[in-house]
């Protein structure tokens, strides 16, 4: 039969684990992340008199047991534990063999109904639940393999699990939400596991507090997974075994609750003392604190040339020139690194480069208009203006979240502005003169997402400013859980209050009138006073329902106030973490835009401190940059030592990262001395790839877009930082080794090499200049000699030197930030 290879095979334990793993890694946890603050209310003080309940595996051990378990508290978690409601089992939206459970048991009421129902397909096999004779229930015969079960045997008839399910049926197969106890708190004990010099397994216990005042050890009903099996593997019973050195987290899920525990497997100590680690600032204190726990020694401070190149590329997306390098290397000022950092943060390329990153993070995509290029520019310029003036980050975000077109002005004033912008971008350079950039808010953000879908607004805003991935609620056509759904919809309602209007007529529109910028009449973003949201009142994620009234204040401001409030767990941490990740190649929370309970930070104290320091300094972005850049941690060498070689999440040494696509393109232009052609630009706008506002045109068989695309420049359509790719590919290597675009730059008559060969007779000096330009350092004696030999044996000095330059564009040291 043709489908034979597609039928789900009986599940092995391994595949069941991978099923939980995919769950763990999947979008679901993002939902849980904001579901939980609601679900898990702060522990009620009245619970002081807790009643401890015996563990389920004891209570239902005896086959003669008569006690009835609770559905949500025992039965549904057991489904999860046994794998029944996983995505590739009955949790699939299509169900499995005609039987469907809600994914991960988020909808117990539906599950109970499904169990009581016997559809015509399974009529030949008997009822799922047989209240008269519980042991004849299909849902007991199948998982015990008494009846043929595609999913294999999940439990035995003489097990406590079987008794739990049987007793639930015997008790009438009931579920009534209000009559069952509710989970109010869920945590793992102990709060941290350290495997000091020992390979003995350690156990974690899962504890659950309920609103009836009881507390129960639910380890046997909890599903465990490890974020890195190589470092710590966890058994179904919560027994943790250490593997490689390092640290990771064990994640536990029970009845909608998620908890994690950090596991540390220190590097075996041989009496070595932690090396001297002079603290530059508090960042280093937190990093060293964690490294000491893991017995990982940090690398040495980087050499000046490594630091110089790294700081240039990371802060301004630009290589230092040969002169800048020489100057820095000669400088004897002990404060020269701090001075350089200040200088770089004041350069215009800072705004250009981080403007590019913020364009990535906020989705400055082709959706903005049918002629996106001009409007992508305008967007980028707006960001650059704010970054240049170092606008406080919360104010900056106000410009996105609370954007209006009118900004409190009259229609006429706004129209004058809009006409000016339109005139500018239709002019010689398709380039605004800064009229739009002076605006306080970026209504383009709303226009961009409006062109896609209302859900995109929610996804984009949650991702851009809160570091959350809420895709699950969008891409699965059925809600996981009513709270989550409600929250998502409520959050969406805030955005739905906003309407677009034709400022010429004042007519309000449900959606954007024909393209902003495409027509003479431009659309404005307003927020609408009408009471359009009846079913789902606007509600902040995991927070308050917003009140709004006709003529009253813009409810989006309340959203913004919630975001920037000191107690908001996402707003400051997410931007701090993103910027950190840009400097280290890995976030404290990683992926950097995936904050959720199943993905705890590798160094919570560090993240907390950075976030509060950022807040306390008035959301000062440059202060944040300076704090990170001046830390010893940022300035560590990439050269690993024996203890930190395999560490990739504790910042013990600098991680070698490939330059982003745009930076690499600019670097090639700069080193060869041949600028790329990105079209006609005003005199004050350099031909820089990092300043290109538009994402590459897809399917770019055209020239300028091709390298951008193969080196992973994002189209900014995915609301995910992962859209930018640093993955290597053969196409990249082919491009660098042999593409005409690169090769022709080597010997361009106006290029660096041609000029050098004319002005400098000494081959050694030419080689040195090329090394300084490409690698920001003086060549070693060996390198100088190898290159000299090559030139000497070449057909001509020119062709030999071309090879030298070619080799410098292809060594990994050029492609990577060191």
């Amino acid at each position, binding site marked *: 039969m*043709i489908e034979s290879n597609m039928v789900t095979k009986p599940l092995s334990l391994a595949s069941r684990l991978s099923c939980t793993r*995919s769950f*763990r890694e999947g979008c679901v946890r993002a939902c849980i992340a904001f579901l939980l603050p609601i679900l898990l209310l702060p522990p009620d003080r009245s619970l002081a008199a807790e009643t401890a309940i015996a563990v389920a595996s004891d209570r239902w051990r005896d086959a003669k047991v008569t006690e009835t378990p609770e559905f949500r508290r025992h039965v549904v978690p057991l489904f999860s534990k046994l794998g029944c409601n996983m995505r590739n089992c009955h949790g699939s939206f299509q169900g499995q063999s005609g039987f469907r459970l809600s994914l991960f048991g988020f909808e117990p009421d539906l599950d109970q109904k499904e169990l009581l129902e016997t559809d015509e397909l399974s009529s030949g096999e008997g009822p799922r639940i047989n209240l008269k004779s519980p042991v004849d229930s299909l849902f007991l015969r199948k998982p015990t393999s008494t009846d043929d079960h595609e999913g294999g045997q999940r439990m035995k008839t003489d097990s406590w699990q079987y008794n739990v399910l049987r007793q639930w049926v015997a008790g009438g197969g009931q579920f009534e939400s209000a009559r069952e106890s509710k989970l109010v708190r869920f945590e793992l004990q102990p709060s941290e596991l350290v495997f000091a010099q020992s390979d003995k397994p350690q156990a974690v216990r899962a504890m659950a507090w309920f609103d009836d005042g009881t507390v129960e050890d639910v380890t046997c009903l909890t599903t465990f997974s490890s974020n890195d099996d190589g470092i710590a593997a966890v058994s179904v019973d919560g027994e943790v075994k250490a593997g490689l050195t390092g640290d990771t987290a064990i994640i536990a899920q029970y009845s909608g609750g998620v908890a994690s525990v950090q596991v540390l497997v220190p590097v075996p100590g041989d009496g070595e003392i932690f090396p001297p680690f002079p603290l530059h600032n508090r960042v280093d204190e937190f990093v060293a604190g964690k490294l000491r726990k893991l017995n990982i020694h940090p690398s040495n401070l980087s050499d000046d040339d490594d630091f110089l190149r790294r700081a240039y590329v990371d802060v301004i997306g630009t290589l230092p020139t040969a002169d800048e390098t020489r100057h820095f290397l000669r400088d004897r000022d002990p404060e020269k690194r701090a001075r350089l950092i200040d200088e770089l943060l004041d350069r215009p390329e800072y705004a250009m480069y981080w403007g590019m990153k913020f364009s990535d993070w906020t989705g400055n995509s082709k959706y903005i208009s049918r002629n996106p290029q001009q409007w992508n520019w305008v967007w980028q310029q707006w960001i650059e203006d704010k970054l240049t003036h170092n606008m406080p980050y919360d104010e900056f975000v106000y410009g996105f979240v609370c954007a209006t077109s009118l900004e409190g002005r009259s229609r006429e004033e706004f129209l004058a502005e809009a006409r000016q912008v339109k005139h500018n971008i239709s002019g010689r350079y398709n380039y605004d003169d800064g009229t739009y950039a002076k605006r306080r808010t970026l209504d383009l953000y709303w226009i961009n997402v409006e062109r896609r879908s209302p859900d995109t607004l929610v996804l984009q805003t949650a991702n851009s400013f809160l570091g959350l991935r809420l895709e699950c609620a969008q891409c699965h056509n059925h809600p996981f859980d009513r709270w989550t759904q409600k929250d998502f919809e409520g959050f969406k309602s805030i955005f739905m209050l906003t309407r677009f209007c034709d400022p010429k007529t004042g007519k309000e529109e449900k959606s954007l009138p024909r393209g902003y910028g495409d027509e003479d009449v431009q659309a404005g973003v307003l927020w609408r006073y009408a009471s359009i949201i009846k079913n789902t009142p606007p509600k902040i994620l995991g927070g308050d329902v917003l009140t709004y009234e006709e003529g009253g204040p813009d409810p989006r401001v309340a959203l913004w106030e919630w975001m920037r409030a000191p107690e908001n767990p996402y707003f400051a941490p997410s931007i701090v973490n993103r910027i950190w990740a840009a400097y280290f190649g890995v976030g404290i929370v990683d992926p950097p835009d995936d904050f959720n309970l199943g993905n705890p930070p590798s160094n919570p104290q560090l993240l907390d401190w950075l976030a509060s320091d950022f807040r306390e300094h008035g959301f000062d972005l440059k202060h944040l940059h300076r704090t990170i850049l001046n830390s010893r941690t940022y300035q560590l060498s990439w050269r690993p030592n024996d203890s930190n070689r395999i560490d990739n999440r504790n910042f013990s040494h600098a991680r070698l990262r490939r330059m982003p696509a745009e930076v690499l393109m600019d670097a090639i232009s700069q080193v060869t001395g041949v600028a790329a052609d990105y079209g006609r630009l005003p005199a004050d706008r350099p031909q820089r790839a990092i300043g290109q506002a538009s994402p590459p045109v897809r*399917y770019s068989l055209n020239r300028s877009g091709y390298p951008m695309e193969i080196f992973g420049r994002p189209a900014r359509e995915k609301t995910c930082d992962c859209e930018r790719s640093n993955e290597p590919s053969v196409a990249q290597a082919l491009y660098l080794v042999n593409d*005409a675009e690169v090769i022709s730059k080597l010997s361009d008559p106006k290029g660096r090499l041609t000029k050098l060969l004319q002005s400098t007779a000494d081959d050694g000096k030419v080689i040195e200049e090329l090394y300084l330009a490409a690698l920001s350092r003086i060549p070693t004696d060996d390198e100088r000699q190898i290159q000299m030999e090559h030139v000497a044996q070449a057909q001509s000095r020119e062709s030999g030197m071309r090879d030298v330059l070619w080799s410098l564009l292809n060594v990994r040291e050029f492609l990577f930030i*060191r």
Partner: protein
Amino acid sequence: MARSARSVTRRSAMQIGALRGLGLSLPGMLRLDAAEDSLTKGRNAIFIFLTGGQSHIDTWDLKPDAGEMKGEFGSIETTVPGYRVCEHMPFLAKQVDKFTVLRSVSHSQGAHSPGQRYLQTGNRKIPSLEYPDYGAVVAREHQAPKGIPPYALLPGGGSNSAPYSSGYLGVAHGPFTALGDPNNKDYSVRALTTPEGSTLEELESRRRLLSRVDTAFAGADVRNAELTGMDRSYEQAFEILQSTSVRKAFQIDAEPAELREKYGRNTFGQSCLLARRLVEAGTRCVSIYNGGWDTHQNNFSDLKNTLLPPWDQGLAALIADLHDRGLLENTIVWCTGEFGRTPKINDMGAGRDHWARAMSMVYAGCGIRGGNIIGETDRTASEPTTDPYSPDDAAASFYHALGIDPHREYHTRDGRPVMIVQNGTPISELWS
């Protein structure tokens, strides 16, 4: 029993099994069992994408009785008795016995971008996930010989704006894009040959130099995937550049002039020929994008004068040539646009507009039966009257022919599990 011919889920198979007890036999399914053995031979693919959306009613699905919707074209006989195609497809008409025409594909994505991504991936476009093109998946599933790019993309002529993407599989699985027109006299491929014509000796000399000076990162972390991956990419790039078989494959002028003529001396025809050469060299999937089919205006004159002739000649020559060389046994050729076109002829100037509710496509090779005309549409080619197939089913069939389980699960970069084809089931009729 329409359902059994279509997609057989396990449940319906059981139901059918029950019916068999009532005396109904299942010859189709049994034939499929036999066919499946030979399917595992499928290794190579040539995907021909007619971007803009080819008119089905003017090509494979003529409706002489459709009155004013009939259009301007007459019909000619084919090698399949009783089946007639457009009079401007004389070459394909003679090869119909070697391929299947599927006329009952129907979907609802009537705009170019979503329609193209749908037909390029077998999955309906969703905002939160970019699915990979067929070639990216095939390249990942079937290894190519050392030094051969597993997935190549050829420009097949015509204006074309269809995006390509390796989607969640990442850029590492992206195509080797052979830019340039293989019909040009001095055809060369971007990054494969340089304008100044650097020799292999020069390349080797540079490679030697590079290996001697690229030593600074010797002590770096070997677990850094970016770094080690880049090393591997360089190795593969040099293998490709120094591989005589790749260079040879692209030396299209080594083909006898007669054969080149047979494919048609135009971009599309020569891309088809190049596709065959690449498949022979070991490339697992060649995609050819042939544009210009968006005939909102001048549908008939454009089809007749510019669109149909090179396509008819090139595709027919490709199928015949693959057949003659025995390559059809393990190579699938699949030709489709993103949708069909409206039966109604518009007032804008004898054009037809987008129409996704009915479209036709062509399959050859990998055991797919020749001369098989599957599915029918109504009197005006507006909708299938037989059970409709979806682009998902069409894509699942393509993978199935290549021995790739279309329901195989990958993980996206952010860890989401996703099947190669989320909703489709192989079309058993293709092999019956």
